[in-house]
């Protein structure tokens, strides 16, 4: 409990250091003789980064290329040359499942989960950071502590409560629990403590803004980088979630992509590896693209830097 107060103490501390910036030139000019050495170092760093990127990309490359090859070709080993069985594989796949329905379901669930989790976690983190109510520290610690109970056995209880509420075979037990995401609350709180100062809130209060309005107009935008960062993890986690939808959904037209992929493994498509890879590719490539696109929006120093002034 005591730790919480101490975490907060870091704030003024981090505020204290750089006040000298105004009276010094901003530009950094490296000495000339270091330039060529500098270039070599940069080259080496880039080379290692590229190698690392390749190591991370290889499985995706294999998946995408295999999606265009026939079963026989897939079995006979891996090459970098794409095959020409893409359309056949798609035809095989479509015979068994309606992958686009699954796509739609996954999208509905993941987007809802991401939005709910982002908004309510920010709300909760804000409540925990800027108000001093009774039992605050106890509640925060309790929340952290509850994350430590392994969730595997909770499945039975989760199923029971969903049954009691009558929400089995709906998207609700997959979406609504996102309102309570302790990890995200924890992260946003940590981030907010380091970047958002209470004086801003107090200034707004003097201007007569309501509490919720302050949250929406001042705090939320500043929390955005942290929310965006966590949103990516939330979205991907929800997109790949397999066990929960598998257990909670019964109607095939409500199945999400990972459940459909499981469906495929039990069917004859599994004997056509090319079609199976195509199915996996269809489920993974969109998030790869979404991620590349979103990546630009995670944490840029501009938004965070603005806090300081």
């Amino acid at each position, binding site marked *: 409990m005591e730790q919480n107060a101490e975490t907060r103490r870091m704030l003024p501390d981090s505020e204290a250091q750089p006040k000298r910036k105004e009276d010094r030139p901003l530009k950094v000019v490296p000495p000339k003789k270091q330039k060529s050495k500098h270039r070599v170092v940069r080259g080496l760093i880039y080379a290692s980064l590229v190698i690392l990127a390749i190591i991370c990309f290889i499985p995706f490359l294999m998946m995408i290329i295999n999606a265009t090859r026939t079963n026989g070709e897939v079995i006979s080993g891996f090459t970098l040359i794409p095959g020409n069985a893409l359309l056949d594989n798609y035809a095989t796949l479509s015979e068994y499942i309606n992958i686009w329905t699954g796509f739609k379901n996954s999208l509905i669930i993941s987007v809802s989960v991401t939005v709910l989790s982002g908004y309510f976690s920010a709300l909760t983190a804000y409540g925990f950071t800027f108000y001093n109510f009774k039992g605050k520290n106890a509640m925060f610690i309790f929340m952290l502590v509850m994350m430590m109970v392994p969730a595997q056995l909770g499945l039975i209880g989760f*199923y029971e409560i969903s049954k009691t509420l009558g929400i089995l*075979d709906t998207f609700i037990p997959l979406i*609504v629990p996102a309102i309570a995401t302790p990890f995200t609350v924890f992260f946003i709180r940590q981030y907010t403590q380091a970047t958002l100062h209470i004086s801003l809130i107090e200034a707004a209060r003097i201007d007569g803004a*309501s509490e*919720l309005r302050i949250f929406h107009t001042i705090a939320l935008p500043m929390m955005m980088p942290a929310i965006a960062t966590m949103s990516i993890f939330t979205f991907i986690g929800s997109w790949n979630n397999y066990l929960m939808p598998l257990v909670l959904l*019964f109607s*095939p037209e409500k199945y999400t992509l990972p459940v459909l992929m*499981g469906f495929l493994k*039990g069917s004859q498509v599994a004997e056509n590896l090319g079609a199976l890879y195509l199915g996996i590719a269809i489920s993974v490539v969109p998030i790869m693209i979404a991620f590349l696109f979103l990546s630009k929006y995670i944490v840029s120093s501009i938004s965070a830097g603005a806090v300081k002034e």
Partner: protein
Amino acid sequence: MRKLVSLLTIGALSVGVLSACSDGGEGSSSEGSKDDVLKIWSFTDELKEPIKTFEERNGVKVELTIVPTADYATKLKPALESGVGAPDVFTGEIAFLKQWIDAGYWENLSEEPYNAEEVSGDIVPYVFDLGKDKDGNVRALSWQTTPGGIYYKRSIAKEALGTDDPAEVGEMMSSMDGLFEVGEKLKDKGYKLFPDEGSIRWFAQGDDPQAWVNEDNELVLTEGKENYFDYAKELRENNLTALAPEWSPSWFEGMDKPIKVKEGGKETETEVFSYVLPTWGLHAVLKENAKDTAGDWAVTSGPSPYFWGGTWVGIYKDSKHKEEAYEFIKLMTQDEEFLTEWAKETGDVLAYNPVTEKIKTDFSDEFLGGQNNYEFFLGEAESIKPGIVTKYDQQLDTLYGAAVTSYVEGKKSKEDAIKEFKKQVKNAYPDIVVD
């Protein structure tokens, strides 16, 4: 301020409201449109064809849900326990059969109006008996019988053993000594008898296999079961296998192509002679993976008979469509017309005698060079005893396999490995008596 309060109240209540809405909506939709649908759950899409036939004949709509084997029990259990969203008909692999029969998930088929006992004479005895509970009531039926054999490549047999005739090759491998002799002959020509050491597990326990656990709930570790250690070690030490563990990519690869084996610091290329698989191994495993070698295969018996796997099907005890459900089970297990077609199409070895009697004589499989595998397997099925299946089998086999591996790889002595195995059994199943 009032806005804040109301907004938060809405937020807090939304859970309740949403669930309340869904409660009404869900209830009506599931009862309205889905009530006349027969729900079937299984772990493969095997049932697709029979379902099509069933829908055409009876005008009943069927909804098949396929759940991957690994997650099948996880999904079934909560649904069956609570009755919410449960299927009307579901299948069970032999690994789960006893457990689910004991749990009482399946309807008693010995009672009116099913009277399953009436067909007892028409179904292979061990298959029929395995579907019974402790009190002898039938809970599930099966359409297939799954005795095992050894599938081998004819061309290699001709080269190394001088013949490719299943009867003659089977004769050579009819004892453990004979099997190892064959292994040595193959080694001389640069071939490997089996892909891995595990291949020998069925034969190691001899002609009279015992259940893992007896009536008094004691662990039974027969000499036959212990022999598995020695035979596996012998295979490894004499370099008779291709070191390709079951279900690994190289295990599959070995069916169609030479695979590389690294022994004593050098790499050699070798071909695997044979795979120890049951009936379903032919259409579900071999035909799918061996394309170039199709036609070069044959099947014969090993030192002792064995059986492996099998799928049973039954009615969920709280189903609202028991009548239609049993119609489906009858189609699947006792319908002459349908089963005849099914057997011809898939090559699955049936458990229903009236059909097998009719088709077994003129059966032949191109993949096996025209051999009549049907007659062969039906012969093998006669020597199977049903009493050896327990609900512990799958887990105990896994634990035992790990113990044998640690001995084969020289990490533990046989005694220590067995001691460790017993300790693990006791830990996993405190109710089993371990000496």
